[in-house]
């Protein structure tokens, strides 16, 4: 190893080999049996439990925790999967601190919620480790459904549809299924190839064919899909990224954070992955935090997140912000990029909230940056013609129906709900139920 965190430029191998392994292991290690028992025992089995309401997929949390507490984690897993077939991934990546655990009555009472996410992982890991798939398909209906996009929304819809007896083909532009489960989420949240294992496990239901490398708009058209299938579900996520609209953005060391993360997730050898000595991440959401933290874990000497508004407005939760700062990331707020400079710096202007919106104060500062990662939001691209949009996303009703008959949509590409894995799962599932009702005339 010749490089170190101090080596200038964007270079690989800044750390000793062992450090990559240590840095990218499970961020939250799994509970063992004893820990799970103790954690489960803290649940009060609340009636009409707030956690259950807070979960976008409405998992019966008190019930599954009681099933763990009484020594039947596989029954607990079935309770979870019945509502959320990607309960294993959600257990790892859900921002529980803003969902179920935030409203846990023990969080309210003691500031220490029941560890719902980790208990969910304990249960789902237990069942999945046995290779058991707990569901079987209903009698074949003879109906076919095309799903476009094999992310959590598409997979969840496909599973529910297959379970109801329909035949499903899932098309995805990328070479692998999983969507952001495979290409997006932070590596230390979903270690050991879990995303692909989960896809394989989910497909055990049968009746689902996945076709990768098939892009809507390039290889497929919506009109053809509508002709060939009884229904279409669109779950194409947000494939575009917002621009900084600052001069210098086109320079080679400036790139979308999601691309950096996708490359990292696909890398077989993290020591071969180049990272800057001084990394600047622009944005305030989960993507910004994940890009910044992982830059540090790859050996960047300094990493700074710069966000244009105040800390309280950041989309990343307080828990995630703490995670970033404890990983050595500095968070600068109230500053917007003015220009990426050829000197290897970025110039920022301080901002202030005014009655007329966010204004630059005129005062500027510069940060050293041999790598700049843009994380200021993803956008919907490649929407087929004829679909009504609302605030930049596909307009849908509560059941996921779009403006076109026979076409449903869900997940990040559809309007409504937060852009989270669990929300995508819920929307995929609910659209599948509605598609089923429409196809069998229930």
């Amino acid at each position: 190893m010749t490089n170190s965190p101090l080596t200038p430029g964007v270079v690989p191998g800044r750390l000793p080999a062992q450090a990559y392994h240590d840095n990218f292991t499970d961020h939250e290690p799994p509970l063992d049996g004893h820990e799970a028992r103790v954690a489960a025992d803290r649940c009060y089995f609340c009636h009409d439990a707030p956690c259950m309401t807070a979960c976008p997929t409405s998992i019966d949390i008190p019930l599954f925790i009681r099933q763990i507490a009484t020594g039947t984690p596989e029954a607990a897993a079935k309770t979870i999967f019945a509502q959320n077939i990607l309960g294993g991934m959600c257990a790892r990546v859900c921002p529980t601190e803003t969902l179920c655990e935030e409203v846990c009555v023990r969080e309210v009472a003691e500031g220490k919620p029941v560890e719902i996410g980790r208990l969910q992982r304990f249960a789902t890991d237990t069942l999945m480790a046995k290779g058991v798939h707990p569901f079987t398909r209903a009698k074949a209906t003879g109906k076919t459904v095309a799903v476009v996009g094999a992310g959590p929304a598409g997979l969840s819809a496909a599973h529910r549809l297959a379970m109801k007896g329909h035949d499903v083909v899932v098309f995805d532009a990328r070479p692998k299924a999983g969507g952001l489960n495979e290409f997006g989420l932070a590596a230390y949240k979903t270690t050991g190839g879990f995303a692909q294992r989960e896809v394989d496990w989910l497909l055990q239901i049968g009746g689902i064919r996945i076709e990768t490398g098939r892009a809507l708009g390039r290889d497929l058209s919506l009109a053809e899909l509508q002709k060939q299938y009884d229904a279409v579900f669109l779950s194409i996520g947000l494939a575009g990224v917002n621009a900084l609209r600052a001069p210098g953005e086109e320079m080679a060391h400036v790139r979308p954070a999601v691309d950096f993360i996708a490359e990292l997730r696909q890398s077989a050898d993290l020591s071969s992955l180049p990272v800057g000595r001084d990394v600047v991440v622009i944005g305030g959401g989960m993507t910004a935090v994940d890009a910044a933290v992982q830059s540090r874990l790859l050996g960047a000497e300094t990493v700074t997140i710069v966000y244009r508004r105040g800390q309280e407005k950041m989309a990343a939760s307080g828990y995630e912000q703490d995670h970033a700062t404890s990983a050595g990331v500095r968070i600068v707020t109230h500053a917007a990029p003015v220009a990426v400079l050829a000197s290897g710096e970025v110039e920022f202007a301080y901002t202030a909230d005014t009655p007329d919106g966010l204004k630059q104060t005129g005062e500027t500062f510069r940060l050293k940056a041999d790598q700049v990662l843009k994380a200021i939001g993803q956008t919907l691209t490649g929407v087929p013609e004829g679909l009504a949009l609302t605030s930049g996303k596909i307009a849908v009703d509560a059941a996921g129906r779009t403006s076109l008959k026979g076409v449903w949509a869900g997940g990040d590409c559809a309007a409504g709900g937060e852009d989270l894995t669990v929300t995508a799962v819920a929307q995929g599932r609910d659209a599948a139920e509605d598609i089923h009702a429409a196809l069998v005339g229930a």
Partner: protein
Amino acid sequence: MANLTSNFIGIKSPNPFWLASAPPTDKKYNVERAFEAGWGGVVWKTLGSEGPPVVNVSGPRYGAIWGADRRLLGLNNIELITDRPLEVNLQEIKEVKRKWRDRALIISLMVPCDEDSWKDILNRIEDTEADGVELNFGCPHGMAERGMGSAVGQVPEYIEMVTRWVKKHSRMPCIVKLTPNITDVRKPAEAAKRGGADAVSLINTINSITSVNLDDFSPEPMIDGKGTHGGYCGPAVKPIALNMVAEIARSAETRGLPISGIGGVTTWRDAAEFMALGAGNVQVCTAAMTYGFKVVQEMISGLSEYMDSKGMTSTADLVGRAVPNVTDWQFLNLNYVTKAQIDPDACIKCGRCYAACEDTSHQAIAMSPDRVFSVKDDECVACNLCVNVCPVDNCITMRTLPKGAVDERTGRKVGDYANWTTHPNNPSVKAAE
């Protein structure tokens, strides 16, 4: 998945979990919600004779004891039988049974101890289409003062007499519910059997005072400065109930008499234990009163997962499995030797085992300066106290010494089965010689 359907004395239900006669089964509203949640059957809250219904206190009627974290362990009550008009109950029972054909619906009864009263009430319930009756000979407070409930249940001759009347005036299956407030539960069970009962159910609640108010100097729950003994139930009574069920299941006189197990059933495991000791099904009250009707879902999933893991396909495979292994102390193998062993990897170094053994047992646990705990085989009598006080599951376990191994405590080799009846220290062995 294991088949949980249950056939108890000809009464079918989709699972062996019934709600016991108590507030959860007091009215149509409750019972329907219980059925929606998945309960296999209910025993309707005890009905009394026609006429003005009984009256309950209008102050607190429950007292409780709690474990850590205010987990409810024992509940006591001074509630009487139903305080709603008989007509209303009968009408609702009929409506519920019509709507929920696949669920078991049993009517609990308690009327004065004369044949006409029983004949009359049995006629009144005839056309409800209920699946059976349960005779409440158990209620230990209030009604007992009026010569009913446990006042009947404590006199085997009365039990036999009333059961006979019921079998004479009704074709319905008849379950006799027993009170634990007696010295030998086999006597009332035998009386029920002689009277023609199809089954017994037990236990009803145990006479108790849960706590005393130390400012007002009255038992709790306190009604205007006074309290009375109530009926105790919940997890705390399970061991008492299990023993009583086992005694009836293994007694020569009552063997084979169907049993509905009641008392502290809170999880699937409790239910499985009652069934292994001979209960054909279980009834639940306090767990539902503590956690709501949804608890049955964990009982259902847990019992089926357990049965699957044991390769049991029907509840009949489980019922009574442990009965042959319930024996008298005198038949226990005195040559069976075990030693505690502590798994150092699982140990969290709390030291509870050390304190327990050192202070109150046999000084058989050693503690090193860096808090490593180990068992001294030459002192350990295998009492199990360390296992019981350890907060970690399976951290301390019992290791069975193989035959021929030397017990370091006694210096003797582990020999063949031998019990007290032949032991040299037993005076009656010598006397017989």
